[in-house]
């Protein structure tokens, strides 16, 4: 665009520009280095067992028996993988309707004071540390489930309930943003055609914002999948595929936090935990990918 003179003095703004650009490039470079080295580190540890042949892929992903300290150790991670998926899906099922209703309430039903009231509450929810959620789960939800349902209260149901409260703010804020960004004329034309508010919400607003709301749900699921402490406190941590929702089970994160410190680096047990970390990481990538796809759909 600009015509460059043949001989230029380095003026001040050129130097500033150069420094600014180098600084930013450096930051971006650092970010990429961190991500690449993390992936490399987790992958090299997580794949070690498979390369050395100590654990086969089919045993790891298909085995239901986790007994790393037994005389003939077995490293079946299926109980943890299924446990993670189970609590995540259940939490999303419980939290999504609640969050979408809260978002609709904030933006459509009573935009005047609904947002003022609910926004701080939701921000507060997302700011509570997970150990507090875990402790509340252990002190309130677990005794409640123990008295109401058969079993010990601890289990997948307790984990999913705690997680659903934790991902509520994520889904609500994303959904509320999506609803607020909806062009006003869509709603107005719907009203002009004589549609009631409920008809407008259910036939116009929700279908058009569906991909954006799903983005929130997937982001919430990503958080639920990676949450460790709160789930570990209430799920019971038995390394089995649970037979009921009120039976002790495990997730990938809970078995990693329980076992990582007690095992020595480089041992088969430790490497198997890294393999699970790799599974967690790949799942996070998948969640991000789904969010990107939804966002692309949303734009069209």
């Amino acid at each position, binding site marked *: 665009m600009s015509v460059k003179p043949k001989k230029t003095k380095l003026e001040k703004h050129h130097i500033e520009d150069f420094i600014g650009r180098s600084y930013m490039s450096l930051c971006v470079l650092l970010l990429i280095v961190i991500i*690449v080295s993390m992936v490399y580190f987790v992958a090299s540890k997580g794949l070690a067992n498979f390369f050395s042949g100590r654990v086969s892929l089919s045993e790891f992903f298909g085995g239901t028996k986790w007994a790393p300290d037994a005389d003939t150790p077995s490293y079946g991670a299926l109980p943890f993988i299924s446990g993670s998926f189970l609590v995540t899906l259940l939490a999303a099922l419980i939290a999504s309707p609640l969050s979408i209703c809260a978002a609709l309430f904030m933006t459509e039903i009573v935009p005047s004071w609904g947002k003022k009231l609910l926004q701080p509450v939701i921000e507060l929810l997302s700011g509570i540390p997970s150990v507090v959620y875990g402790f509340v789960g252990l002190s309130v939800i677990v005794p409640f489930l123990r008295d109401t349902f058969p079993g010990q209260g601890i289990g997948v149901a307790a984990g999913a309930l705690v997680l659903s409260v934790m991902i509520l703010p994520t889904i609500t804020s994303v959904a509320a943003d999506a609803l607020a960004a909806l062009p006003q004329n869509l709603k107005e034309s719907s009203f002009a055609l004589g549609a009631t508010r409920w008809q407008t919400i259910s036939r116009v607003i929700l279908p058009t914002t569906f991909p954006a709301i799903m983005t929130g749900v997937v982001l919430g699921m990503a958080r639920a999948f990676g949450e460790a402490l709160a789930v570990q406190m209430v799920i019971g941590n038995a390394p089995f595929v*649970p037979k009921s929702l009120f039976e002790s089970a495990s997730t990938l994160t809970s078995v990693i936090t329980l076992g990582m410190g007690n095992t020595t680096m480089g041992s088969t047990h430790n490497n198997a935990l890294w393999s699970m970390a790799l599974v967690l990481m790949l799942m996070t990538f998948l969640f991000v990918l789904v969010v990107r796809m939804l966002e692309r759909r949303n734009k069209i």
Partner: protein
Amino acid sequence: MQFKKKSWIMALALTSVVALSACGNNGGNNAATNNAGNNTAANNTQNSSAELSGSILASGSTALQPLVEQVAERFMETNTGVDIQVQGGGSGTGLTQVAEKQVDIGNSDVFAEEKLKDDDAEKAASLVDHQVAVVAIAAVSHPDAGVDSLTKQQLVDIFTGKIKNWSEVGGADQAIQIINRPASSGTRATFESFALGTKTEDMQGSIQEDSSGTVKKMIGETPGAIGYLALSYLDDSVKTLNYDGVEPSVDNVISGDYPVWAYQHMYTNGEPTGALKAFLDYFLTDEVQTTDVVELGYIPASQMQVSRDVEGNVTTK
């Protein structure tokens, strides 16, 4: 556009190469810094007659961490030139790090030989064991279970799932709920070796918690619960069970009558020197053993009338 895309790919490729080489160098860097650390420690030895100085880094067992921290505080009060840092991370982490010379002391609640097995066995050979305290573990139940004492065989049957109801061992008609520790836990290893005498497999539906506080809370609240806790955690919220008729008390542990106990180990890589040696010696003085160690619920290792080796053979001192 074409050019932009290409430059991005180049940048990515470049950074990944940098990242990989950085990872490769890690080991070397660590070794270098550690050597430096060791050198300072060694240099300090010469001055030790006058005044100790240097820095000591300990990591490992979270169960042992509070004790080491408290003793370190006291040691640093009198030896102002010494700086001692104590980190947690778990026994496995402590042993790995001390074997790789990343730390000076590796705290562990099991023998190093039990954690560093198979390929890592030679790592354990260079480690020197310092047994600083003893922790005893008692079987505990929910207060309403209605049982005062269990035999070894009854405990084995309970933890392997053969006995499922308290009424089978003379208690209330109440299903037994096991509150266990994760398979890699040192507390569980101790309980299985010395109370059960056998390894147990996890059972479907058993609950596993890592922290003693949570285990106590769960046993106190869950009807029919059974588990095990270190003596320092026992109180009225749970019922302490006698083992083969022997009460799990400090006196019974010291005399060797109550068998369910384990040493708390502080491992060094090679014989300690200088400030490190002074600190570990200080740990075993009566001053520490009869105050801090007892205060935090441990049993002084120096008072034990029996000793035990890696294989679990007990000999009277």
